[in-house]
């Protein structure tokens, strides 16, 4: 069966510090991978997506970046966090089959102080 993991579950970071959030998927090969951010009480904003290793598409220009070093690993990073980076970060995958549903991980809640 397919599963998706994110860690850490919760993170409190000072302004100006770096960030690295990791997402891994099991049970599928060559998935599309996605990073979303959700502010409290708001909708989901697509940040990055990847259709293959090393391929990253950015949806929103900001101080975040994404990387896909392995087929089933997706990393969200920042060199210097801003207060506005606080939020709930969700990773999602879509399998390589014709089924186009996206499935989400449990999320990482980030608080920048």
């Amino acid at each position, binding site marked *: 069966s397919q599963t998706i993991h994110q860690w850490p579950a919760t993170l409190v970071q000072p302004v100006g510090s770096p960030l690295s959030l990791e997402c891994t998927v099991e049970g599928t090969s060559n998935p599309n991978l996605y990073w979303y951010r959700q502010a409290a009480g*708001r*909708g989901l904003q697509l940040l990055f997506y990847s259709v293959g290793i090393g391929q990253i598409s950015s949806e929103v220009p900001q101080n975040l970046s994404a990387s896909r070093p392995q087929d089933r690993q997706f990393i969200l990073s920042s060199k210097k966090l801003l207060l506005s980076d606080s939020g709930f970060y969700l990773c999602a995958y879509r399998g390589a089959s014709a089924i186009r*549903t*996206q499935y989400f991980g449990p999320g990482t*809640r980030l608080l920048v102080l």
Partner: protein
Amino acid sequence: GESVGLHLPTLSVQEGDNSIINCAYSNSASDYFIWYKQESGKGPQFIIDIRSNMDKRQGQRVTVLLNKTVKHLSLQIAATQPGDSAVYFCAENIGDKIIFGKGTRLHILP
């Protein structure tokens, strides 16, 4: 379309009644639509999907209706239960991306 900056609207429904949650999408090229349920502190959970060549699809207690003429999607939940309390998002597929609508908070009245 995407409205990530807006507060979520709320729909209050009596327990046992049917719920209808509406969504407008923006891109006529969208060929696949999904409804998600998100409980507090969790990631969105898939509920039901529909392709653009259909206008209705039924699941267990849920029905999705698609009106491509007016770019409108709705989710109907039959016999609403306390466990249905959550935020519901519609999403449209455009190529490799899925773009989320603004979401609706469903509140169940006892």
